[in-house]
């Protein structure tokens, strides 16, 4: 593992990238298994599932940054996991909002 020590991997970032890789794999499989045609939504531009995923990810990044900048990351709950408990940051609310926005994007854009 010394050879990739410079990459400074952590469990959270590894999980994050694994989720991204999984999403891309599922999207590739979907594109092969269920080919689709472009459609025009509320933005009046032709979009495919991949475009809608891209828009959702960009919006998720913006929502998280706005949340960090405007609301902050205070602890909203402590889950009884481990000795000290697992503190849940309010940033997870931004994640929930992003998921909601992603659903809206996939249905309307």
């Amino acid at each position, binding site marked *: 593992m010394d050879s990739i020590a410079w990459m400074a991997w952590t469990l959270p970032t590894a999980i994050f990238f694994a989720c991204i890789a999984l999403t891309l794999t599922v999207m590739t499989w979907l594109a092969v298994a269920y080919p689709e045609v472009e459609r025009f*939504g509320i933005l009046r*531009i032709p979009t495919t599932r991949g475009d809608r995923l891209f828009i959702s990810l960009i919006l998720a990044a913006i929502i998280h940054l706005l949340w960090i900048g405007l609301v902050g990351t205070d602890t909203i709950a402590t889950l009884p996991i481990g000795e000290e408990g697992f503190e849940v940051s309010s940033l997870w609310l931004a994640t929930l909002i992003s998921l909601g926005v992603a659903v809206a994007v996939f249905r309307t854009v």
Partner: protein
Amino acid sequence: MEKTVNQKAWFLVLPVFLVVAFSAIIPMMTVVNYSLQDTFGNNQFFWNGVGWFKELLDPSTDLGGRFLASLGRNLIFSAIILAIEVPLGIVIALSMPRTGWQVAACLVILALPLLIPWNVVGTIWQIFGRPDIGLLGYTLNSLGIEYNYVSNAFDAWATVIVMDVWHWTSLVALLCYAGLKSIPDAYYQAAQIDGASRWAVFTAIQLPKMNRVLLIAVLLRFMDSFMIYTEPFVVTGGGPGNSTTFISIELVKIALGQFDLGKAAAMSLVYNLIILIVCWVFYTVMTNAGAARPVKEGAK
């Protein structure tokens, strides 16, 4: 007979994927890793969560203040050079000859600044503007106009802007010229029959016909100027003070000067996000501009 689809050709893309993985994907993942940690070197990292992002987006902190200030400077810089280069490029394109050997001469002269590498452009202007040995600096000071880009923020800005205008107006002019050349003569003949004035020909024929190339020009120049590093770094080094420290210069100072990899990584991710959004808008507008939209294609 059912046709089979052979997807094996996708394997031919594999070398490109590997190159992109090494040059873009792996470094990008590393930057994401760095942005959530702190380090003092020697590959020892300490988890910091979203701390750097919090600092980055809070104007009251040192990092946030520097980031927002340099972002603001960069936006002002982009706005100024666009406001100068686009109208100037249009005027140059309109006044260029349409036939004869003069066309080739004009095109070569216009293309010259575009062929010069960024750091050379910076060096040219750095020497050109020096008050002691530079032609521009010496002449201005001899005329009684105090000019010193090393000590005066206004002079530094003026130098960087004039340098960018000198370097890149040609691009706008050449794009506009290409747009103008593609207008068929029939439009001008129709305008002549209608007795249209020069201004009417410009607003009703030339400008609408140039809108696609102008869009390319504006977006190319915006993205380029938003990522500008080499020229102001060579000429002013970001000074005097921080007056010409644009966002990429600030980023390099934090990453390589102070070795604050976490702060620099967080900053470069936000910077990257802004550029990604602009690129996406650029690509979407480019590919859809002028495309016929279906009347009723709401659903699949």
